[in-house]
């Protein structure tokens, strides 16, 4: 996440006000000081405090923009310049000739505001919201490989893999990859130049940049090519190391006990909102014992009549077909209990610590691309 110094300074301004109001020296100062010093929980809270605030800002901004800019449809013909609600019968009749005044829409600037075409909100992520994480086309063609090392077959008892890296790379390509099968590089596919080009593509996407990917239709096709697959496999391992071994991560890895009902409810609400807002979030959960932690992508959330909720998953430990139709899932009870299709009783579950900052960075890059394309 690029955090500009300007944003940093504006936060200082907020803090200055809070601190100035707290003459007793308690409250803000003490709370933050405690956050600064506590090794695990405090640091996780610290990480979320400002990053979460920025992510929270997008929650508010998204809601505001949706109210300000309802989806409308404007024709370029006799109704030029007049916004007509899409449910209007007259509009429906002319729908075929209408442009779209919506995120990533095709209305010209004189008919549609840039704020509608390229909203600086979660809705900018809608560009690839149809890429369901469990669908074969939108996954890496190779799995995480928990069974690679010898021993009894159990999803996570033996080797473990680079699940966090696998989920992160999958998520980033799905959100940011603009596949362009109609264009090929001039360099031959057997050349070092070709490899160099796609090496930069992979670096850019995993650096949270919206990136054009010529020559391929989707992530599965892209990751099938040996030259690409070698680089992606390396990137999966690197992404893993960059996330799994940070101090802030160790908190979830230690949480082998059942969640409280309140924690579970907050988790369900948070994840459901993220899915609704075009994000298929990564979640981390620990099962069985400490360090037995896995990261998966949630593709959908479903409420059950008994008060429980089901997270349908894209789990990198399984093949594309094994991820279809919610075959991989976690059920979260109203009492905080959680169990999955594959991992037995589950302890702590959290939205992966990289989700907020990655999402904020991705929004920024997508908005920039959208505006560049539309002359905003």
């Amino acid at each position, binding site marked *: 996440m690029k955090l500009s110094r300007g944003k940093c300074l504006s936060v200082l301004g907020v803090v200055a006000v809070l601190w100035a109001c707290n003459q007793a020296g308690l409250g803000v100062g003490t709370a933050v000081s405690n956050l600064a010093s506590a090794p695990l929980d405090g640091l996780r809270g610290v990480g979320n405090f400002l*990053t979460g605030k920025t992510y929270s800002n997008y929650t508010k901004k998204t809601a505001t923009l949706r109210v300000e800019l309802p989806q409308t449809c404007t024709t370029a013909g006799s109704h030029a310049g007049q916004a007509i609600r899409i449910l209007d019968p007259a509009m429906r009749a002319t729908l075929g000739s209408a442009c779209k005044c919506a995120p990533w829409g095709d209305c010209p600037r004189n008919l549609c505001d840039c704020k509608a075409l390229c909203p600086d909100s979660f809705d900018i992520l809608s560009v690839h919201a149809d890429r369901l994480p469990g669908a074969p086309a939108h996954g890496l063609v190779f799995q995480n490989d928990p069974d690679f*090392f010898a021993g009894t077959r159990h999803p996570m008892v033996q080797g473990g893999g680079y699940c966090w890296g696998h989920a992160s790379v999958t998520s980033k390509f799905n959100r940011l990859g603009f596949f362009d099968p109609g264009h090929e590089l001039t360099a031959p596919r*057997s050349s070092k130049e070709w490899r160099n080009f796609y090496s930069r593509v992979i670096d850019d996407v995993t650096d949270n940049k919206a990136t054009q990917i010529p020559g391929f239709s989707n992530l599965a096709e892209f990751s099938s090519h040996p030259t690409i697959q070698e680089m992606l496999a390396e990137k999966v391992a690197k992404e893993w*190391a960059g996330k799994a071994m940070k101090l802030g991560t160790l908190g979830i890895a230690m949480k082998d006990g059942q969640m409280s009902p309140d924690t579970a409810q907050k988790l369900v609400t948070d994840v459901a909102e993220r899915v609704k807002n075009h994000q298929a979030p990564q979640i981390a959960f620990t099962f069985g014992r400490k360090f037995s932690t896995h*990261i998966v992508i949630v593709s959908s959330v479903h409420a059950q009549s008994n008060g429980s909720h089901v997270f349908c998953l894209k789990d990198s430990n399984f093949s594309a077909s094994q991820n279809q139709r919610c075959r991989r899932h976690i059920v979260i009870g109203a009492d905080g209990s959680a169990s999955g299709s594959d991992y037995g009783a589950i302890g702590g579950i959290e939205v992966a610590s990289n989700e907020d900052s990655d999402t904020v960075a991705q929004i920024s890059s997508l908005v920039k691309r959208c505006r560049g394309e539309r002359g905003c």
Partner: protein
Amino acid sequence: MRAWLMISVFLCAAPSHAAAEISADSKALASIEKELKQAIAHEKPDAAHLFHIYRIAGREFQAYGFLKQARSVYEKALAVKTDEDPSEPIIQLLQLDYLEKNLKEQKRHLAIARARIKNSDLLEYVEWYEKALVGGEKGPERFEGGLFGAPARWSMLEKLMREKKFNEAFALINPKGVEQSSLPHRITYDLLNVLVNRRKAGNLFCADDLKKYPDAYSYSIRLCKILSSYIEKGAVDPAAWQSLESFFKENNESAVQDKRYLVAAAEELKK
């Protein structure tokens, strides 16, 4: 005033802790360094405060990808004589040691961790790190599954291959778990299979990729060609070998050079 600065520096740097990869930016580097110097010069912090300034600066440097600077300030944090909890700089330094494959610093930081970390959960992680990633004379000793299982096993596998203990390395891998793996993992299995079983290795997991992409600019495909022709003819094809060596000469990045142990192992087939 001291608490105010602690909050301000802390909040400025806080998001970087949870931040993912951020592009290196020379202006950002200069800005963080300037802010750090000013914080120390203007506030004249006591030891505890100074420790936290360094700690938080380390987060920001690391989040922006300035790992050398992050390492430097984390070390400075540890050098401050204070009773503040040193866990964060120690754990982050261990992460950097792993990322940079710095074995010497790993051992030094592990010793510091054992001496100075009091949190029992973190000590458990340190113990795992030491036994799984560093180990003793024989290398990694601990093979748990879960989140941290993979690097320990790969570390052991690589070590065994470098020591030409191919049978032991081969025995680590589950052939039923190979098929769905990435090509680099499959070619590692295939290489070990041929080193151990020579012309009786049977089908190679890389064969389908080789058939579909025979000219792919890839060390895995070039190595697959060598293995395939070895099984067929009982000898290493010189042109295929030259092609594999060329790939490693033409690509200097560490991600490729770190795989040279595969070439060294494959060379055994020439004997």
